[in-house]
């Protein structure tokens, strides 16, 4: 199945004229199937492609597409709905008038032909999107249909033309009930003036609904004839809200009339409305009337507005002020504030706020007067107004005001100072503070200085601290220190310690931290703090801990950590708190250590756990390492809350280990809901975490979810599960309970392979016994006690990804172990302190390599007694290792230790090495990776003279006009049309008579084709020949012609149907062509056996020209069609 679109598009680009020959010759069915294959389009390119395809649709094609709609709930309409709806927007783009006309015509044809009313409704909605005058006649009949009238009326009103209005008006008279309401509603929406009389005759109905919608429509139209009925209706509603909304309609109507330029009658009516709405309950209508009058009279309304702005009703007053805004000027604002102090307090407040918001500087004199008003609310309003109006000068005046003011006014001044843009503010405040004697004002000034980070006030603050000021004032000064401290202040601050009360020490410490943080030489400043600490009495030393904690860094850490083991319990406790509050991630190992000491004080443990969580979240370390820390923290946690916090923190590090760890807690009564969230958030973010374990965990999460979002979340998880790859994914190699899946080691791979079955079986029995002596499952860990030989997987592995956690004993001597990959040593594990054997390079290197690198790139080991995580990836002979998230071995060849003349074995077992020392393992997971199998010709085909065109490694035999063809990870020739529709891929060489063999795998609805004897351009189905490749069992192909089924010589010779394997399985196919004889064999069955000349002598089945049938030679091609298909093992023999 092939189309001309691409050739056509290419021609457009080259600006060739389009001739009749190049018309889209596809059948309607084909066009629709092609289009639906692109729906919904994932990418913009594909979307454009789909829209370009629809532009080639005739009205009949559009209609045929829409007629395929099933009644709601009875079939799959999605593809049609995507296409038809998107295209209804597309045709309104500039320059698409022709396409729009065609689309509307097609939609109308469908509307008439479809009988299901909901499907009709969908088509009407399309016409609401895209329709114009040409749709009016088709829509009109539905106006009186009870079910569809609302849709038809809306479509017509949205079309909004004279003709649409006339159509609505024509049926209005005879309509009743729902239809009358819908039609009137639509006429109102489009404000169709000729309908005024007809609506007027309906408007006096006693039917509330029809009356309301009629009054609304009349108001939208705004005709003179409606004046009395609308006015009367509003009046009889007493100008307030009623079910007919007559008042709202009347107000709307008067606005319309003003807009129509009918100022005089509108003004008269508005004035009457204004006068008749003086009751409190009518205030909102009164405001609307005032608005109408203002709209009409503009400046002439100002005096009325000024009067209204002093009205006792705050709603009315503030609305009037709002209406006044466009007419504000110096004169108006002076009038506004004139004799302000005479009016009610709340009115003064509103007006002051108003002139400030509108920057009316002419009001300043009155504002300044108001600063000394007797009521606090007015004073506060005046302070705010002064601040807003007189930004430059206000601060000084406001500071002066502080001394004599009440507390509320002071707070207003404070707010103004905090938001002041005055660059001299810090100096002003400092000066004021120096001279201020009122303690409350001093405190306020200090607070503002602190918040504004005024470094210049430091000395003044120190002076106050050293003075005989009250405790409250001193306390404020201390509190401001951290914000104003500068690097030069460190010594002065540390001096303050000597005499300071305990309650101020926190502020001094914080100030010292700030001083160091701002310094250019933090190291020297840190040393200064450390030296002061050492010089201090033992009892005073603890005061320095929080400073060091705030500064952070390795040196500070070392000092504080020493004190966590001090003999003095007070110092120990202080050091522990300091560590828990540490600034940088460097304290994590120390915190872990602390957490394990079983801090007896539960509050301290809480602080330590929270400190761990906080530092893990901010530390710049790999996710694998974060997960190790958090698992340690979980181990140390005692309360449910602590455990929950750790679980929540875990979700930020989205590793497989974290997922599995949280997964184990899904059955913990107290933790399961927290665990469920963690599992969900990690899993949903990782499409490469799949397999039976992941599926099991997510299904469990679905059961556990509750709350308002849960219905969405369940859907999201289900969708995620459906989209996951179907392979086994990571599989656990160790069940935590026993040694299932493991066996003892028998000799080396070479010797083992040489053994006969009986010898091997006997040796295996002995080896298993040795294994059980040295290896055991304990506490969920796989432990080696130091005695015996390697433990090996029962299964053999080729290419894989492996996760394994390991731990060397803390007190162990000469710790050493390793992971044998494919039976071969090894990814090294050792105690990095063993300098004598070179272990300082760290673990994770390929220790036994002689030619290729054997050392790791860096040391990433955790200390002895701590867990480590390996992520090992082996592809072919190359190994990549991450240790605790750090890359330590980067795609290095693993040499064959057992016979260095050989490459590494393609498949072998994995072993954990026994090296005489105690080792623990946990969380061993492996994911097998599909290996690219390189195709080689079977001997028989080699003899027959077949030649390989694609073996899974390269595309050397091909020329492509598209990026859509590539080699997949598994080594198939894949058409993955992420962008665009695919296009064609041709052999470099030409072939005339040949046997072509290949395998292919389809995806649902997939469509491709094999071009033969094809030229490099044009549509191969016609200018060459096309052997169809199609998932012809798919629903969307149910109506195709027999010559379009899989295997057919497209349009010429139909194939036998029913020999394709299920979608997703590999099919084998052979195409034999010699002269005019053609034979297609699918999975061993001949499905085409014909003669091209015979088949076309009386014209072809599809009644199209097929000049390609006469060709004797050409390229073999894959004819792309926008869907994913895989091919492999492609070979050809010339005949």
């Amino acid at each position, binding site marked *: 199945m092939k189309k001309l679109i691409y050739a056509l598009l290419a021609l457009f680009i080259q600006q060739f004229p389009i001739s009749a020959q190049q018309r889209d010759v596809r059948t309607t069915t084909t066009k629709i199937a092609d289009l639906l294959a692109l729906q919904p389009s994932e990418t913009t390119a594909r979307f454009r492609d789909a829209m370009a395809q629809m532009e080639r649709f005739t009205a009949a094609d559009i209609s045929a597409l829409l007629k395929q709609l099933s009644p709601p709930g009875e079939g799959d309409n999605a593809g049609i709905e995507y296409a038809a*709806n998107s295209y209804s927007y597309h045709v309104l783009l500039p320059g698409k008038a022709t396409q729009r006309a065609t689309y509307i015509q097609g939609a109308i044809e469908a509307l008439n032909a479809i009988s299901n009313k909901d499907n009709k409704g969908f088509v009407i909605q399309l016409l609401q999107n895209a329709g114009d005058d040409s749709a009016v006649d088709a829509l009109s009949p539905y106006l009186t249909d009870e079910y569809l009238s609302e849709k038809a009326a809306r479509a017509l009103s949205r079309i909004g033309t004279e003709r649409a209005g006339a159509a609505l008006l024509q049926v209005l008279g005879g309509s009743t009930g729902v239809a009358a*309401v819908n039609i009137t509603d639509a006429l109102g929406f489009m404000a169709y003036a000729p309908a005024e009389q007809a609506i007027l005759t309906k408007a006096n109905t006693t039917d509330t609904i029809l009356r309301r919608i009629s009054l609304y429509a009349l108001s939208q139209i705004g005709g003179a004839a409606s004046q009395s009925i609308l006015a009367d209706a509003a009046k009889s509603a007493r100008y307030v809200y009623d079910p007919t909304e007559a008042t709202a309609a009347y107000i709307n109507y008067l606005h319309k009339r003003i807009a129509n330029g009918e100022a005089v009658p509108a003004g008269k009516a508005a004035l009457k409305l204004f006068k008749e709405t003086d009751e409190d309950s009518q205030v909102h209508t009164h405001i609307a009337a005032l608005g109408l009058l203002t709209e009409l009279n503009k400046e002439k309304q100002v005096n009325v507005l000024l009067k209204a702005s002093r009205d006792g*009703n705050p709603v009315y007053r503030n609305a009037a002020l709002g209406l006044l805004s466009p007419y504000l000027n110096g004169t108006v604002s002076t009038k506004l504030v004139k004799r302000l102090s005479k009016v009610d307090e709340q009115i003064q407040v509103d007006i002051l706020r108003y002139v400030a918001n509108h920057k009316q500087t002419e009001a300043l004199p009155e504002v300044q007067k108001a600063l000394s008003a007797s009521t606090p609310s007015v004073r506060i309003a005046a302070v705010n107004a002064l601040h807003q109006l007189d930004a430059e000068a206000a601060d000084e005046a406001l500071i002066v005001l502080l001394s004599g003011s009440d507390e509320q006014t002071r707070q207003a001044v404070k707010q103004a100072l905090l938001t002041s843009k005055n660059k001299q503010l810090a100096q002003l405040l400092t000066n004021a503070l120096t001279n201020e004697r009122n303690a409350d004002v001093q405190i306020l000034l200090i607070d503002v200085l602190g918040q504004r980070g005024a470094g210049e006030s430091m000395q003044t603050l120190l002076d106050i601290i050293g003075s005989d000021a009250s405790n409250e004032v001193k306390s404020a000064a201390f509190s401001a220190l951290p914000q104003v401290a500068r690097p030069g202040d460190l010594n002065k601050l540390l001096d303050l310690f000597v005499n300071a009360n305990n309650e101020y020490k926190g502020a001094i410490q914080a100030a010292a931290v700030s001083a160091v943080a701002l310094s250019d030489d933090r190291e020297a400043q840190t040393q200064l703090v450390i030296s002061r600490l050492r010089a201090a009495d033992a009892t005073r030393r603890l005061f320095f801990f929080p400073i060091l904690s705030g500064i952070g860094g390795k040196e500070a850490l070392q000092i504080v950590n020493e004190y966590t083991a001090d003999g003095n319990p007070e110092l120990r406790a202080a050091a522990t708190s300091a560590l828990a509050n540490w600034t940088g991630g460097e304290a994590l190992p120390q915190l872990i250590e602390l957490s394990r000491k079983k801090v007896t004080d539960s509050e301290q443990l809480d602080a330590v756990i929270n400190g761990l969580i906080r530092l893990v979240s901010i530390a710049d370390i790999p996710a694998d390492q974060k997960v190790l820390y958090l698992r340690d923290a979980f181990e140390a946690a005692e309360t449910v809350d602590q455990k929950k916090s750790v679980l929540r923190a875990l979700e930020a590090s989205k590793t497989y280990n974290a997922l599995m760890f949280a997964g184990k807690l899904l059955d913990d009564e107290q933790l399961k809901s927290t665990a469920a969230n963690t599992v969900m958030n990690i899993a949903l973010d990782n499409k490469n975490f799949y397999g039976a374990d992941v599926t099991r965990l997510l299904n469990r999460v679905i059961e556990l979810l509750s709350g308002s979002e849960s219905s969405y979340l369940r859907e999201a998880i289900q969708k995620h599960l459906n989209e996951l790859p179907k392979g086994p994914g990571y599989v656990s190699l160790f069940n935590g309970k026993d040694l299932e899946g493991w066996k003892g080691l028998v000799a080396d791979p070479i010797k083992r392979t040489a053994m006969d079955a009986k010898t091997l079986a006997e040796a295996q029995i002995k080896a298993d016994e040795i294994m059980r002596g040295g290896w055991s499952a304990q506490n969920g860990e796989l432990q080696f006690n130091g005695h015996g030989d390697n433990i090996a997987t029962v299964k053999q592995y080729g290419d894989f990804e492996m996760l394994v956690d390991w731990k060397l004993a803390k007190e162990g001597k000469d710790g050493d172990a390793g992971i044998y990959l494919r039976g071969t040593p090894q990814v090294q594990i050792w105690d990095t302190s063993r300098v004598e054997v070179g272990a300082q390079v760290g673990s994770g290197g390929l220790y036994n390599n002689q030619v290729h690198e054997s050392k790791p790139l860096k040391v990433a080991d955790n200390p002895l007694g701590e867990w480590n995580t390996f992520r090992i990836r082996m592809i072919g002979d190359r190994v990549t290792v991450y240790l605790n998230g750090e890359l330590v071995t980067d795609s290095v060849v693993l040499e064959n230790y057992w016979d260095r003349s050989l490459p590494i074995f393609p498949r072998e077992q994995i072993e954990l090495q026994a090296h005489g020392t105690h080792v623990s393992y946990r969380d061993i997971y492996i994911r097998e990776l599909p290996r690219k199998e390189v195709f080689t010709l079977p001997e028989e085909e080699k003899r027959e003279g077949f030649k390989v065109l694609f073996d899974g490694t390269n595309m050397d035999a091909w020329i492509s006009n598209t990026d859509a063809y590539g080699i997949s990870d598994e080594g198939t020739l894949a058409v993955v049309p992420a962008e665009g529709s695919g296009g064609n891929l041709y052999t470099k060489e030409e072939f005339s008579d040949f046997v072509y063999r290949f395998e292919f795998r389809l995806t649902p609805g997939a469509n491709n084709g094999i071009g033969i004897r094809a030229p490099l351009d044009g549509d191969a189905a016609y200018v060459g020949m096309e052997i169809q490749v199609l998932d012809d069992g798919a629903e969307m192909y149910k109506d195709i012609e027999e010559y379009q089924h899989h295997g057919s010589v497209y349009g010429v010779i139909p194939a036998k149907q029913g020999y394709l394997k299920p979608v997703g399985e590999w099919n084998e196919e052979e195409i034999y062509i010699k002269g005019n004889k053609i034979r297609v064999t699918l999975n061993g069955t001949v499905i085409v056996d014909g003669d091209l000349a015979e088949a076309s002598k009386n014209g072809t089945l599809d009644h199209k020209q097929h000049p390609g049938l006469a060709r004797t030679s050409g390229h073999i091609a894959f004819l792309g069609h926008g869907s994913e298909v895989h091919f492999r093992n492609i070979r050809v023999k010339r005949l």
Partner: protein
Amino acid sequence: MPSEKGDENAGSIRPLKTNYSLMKEKNTSRREFIKRAAIGAAAFSIVPRFVLGGQGYLAPSDHLTKGIIGVGGMGRGHFAYAGTKTVAICDVDTRHLALAMKQLSDNSVKQFSDFRELIQLPEVDIVHIATPPHWHGLMAAETARMGKDIWCEKPMTRTIGEGKRVVEAVKQHGNIFRLNTWFRFEDNFYGMNVPVKRIKKLVDSGMLGWPLKVTISKHTGFDWKFYWVGHENLPVEEVPKELDYDMWLGPAPYKPYSTHRVHTTFRGYWDYDGGGLGDMGQHYIDPVQYFLNKDNESPISVEVDAPQQHSDAVGTWRRITYTYADGCQIVLDGEGRDVGMPYIEGPDGKLFRGFKSDIPDLERKLAAFPDPEPQVTDFVDAVKTRKKFALNEQNGYRSCTIVNMGLTALRLGRSLKFDPQTQLFIDDEAANRLIDQPMRGPWAL
């Protein structure tokens, strides 16, 4: 063939329960209801403001009385806002009403199924609109005409046109309007983990330079909730007897009932909302509009990169980029493409998730700059003293317009240009048809 089965199907079409007859019934009983209301009022421990001193007057110590329209999950969460007391509730699902009454445990609270009865109650000061968004515009405008003050859940309106109508109605009648997202003045702002005031202070300080680009993505701490999507090919189901589906739909086009359309999953359908962008968008975008000082303007363009969208069900998207006339940009990154992206990027500095910056010692430098001007953040105070609330119909309309520009571009599958003055799309009739969408009769706005 589907079309041939049409006649058989005609019988299975759920008859449109006409608004017409429904509303007539309601209205004849309204007089009685008002009578009841008057009697009920005597039992109130709280004296409504109209009794005290005319409408709009309220002694400072008094609670404001409120009526809540829509007491599903959202509405039921708002019974106890400080300074207010719930006196009436309304829902089209009697199950919601029952749950709400149980939660309120106050039998004097009045229950309604038609919001127009609730907004007419004399004893209600504030009307709280907590329905799905397709009702917001209509209810807000009618409440404004009734003379009540309004608390409306986000997003403000489902279309740009409805937003304009609400602004007009509130202006016309002098109401106080609060749009309910609060991050511009309260709480820590998602992944930034600081109040927006701090971000605003930084932007105002000029330390980042100008223009700014703001990226809202999972890497800057915002979840676009892509699981809020709709389904295609919904099954046709029986309407539950407790639900007045016709009234639930209201102005939205009639479509056969399916459980997934309503209640907790309505956000996945264009007719009622716009997925994660529709529902979370204003939470995330409004503060950006505020700290960029764009409360009185709109972007001039919106670019989308997304999979094709369905006619009914909302789908996901990859990237939506808004550009203002001065070059400022707001980027919504749906698939987290930009790992390590700053939240705000300016020519002179960057701000990352968690208020981290590449400007050394930012906090200290920032202290010397002025705080942003205070905002009116107490709704009760705003109502009592007639101050415009911090997030009101005007700036709320603007930030909702940003959301609606994105949704429009998404539905159309193309980038759009916008005129902030006329508030219309430029040279795109299809987009402009979505600005003003006619409503199903008998509703009009």
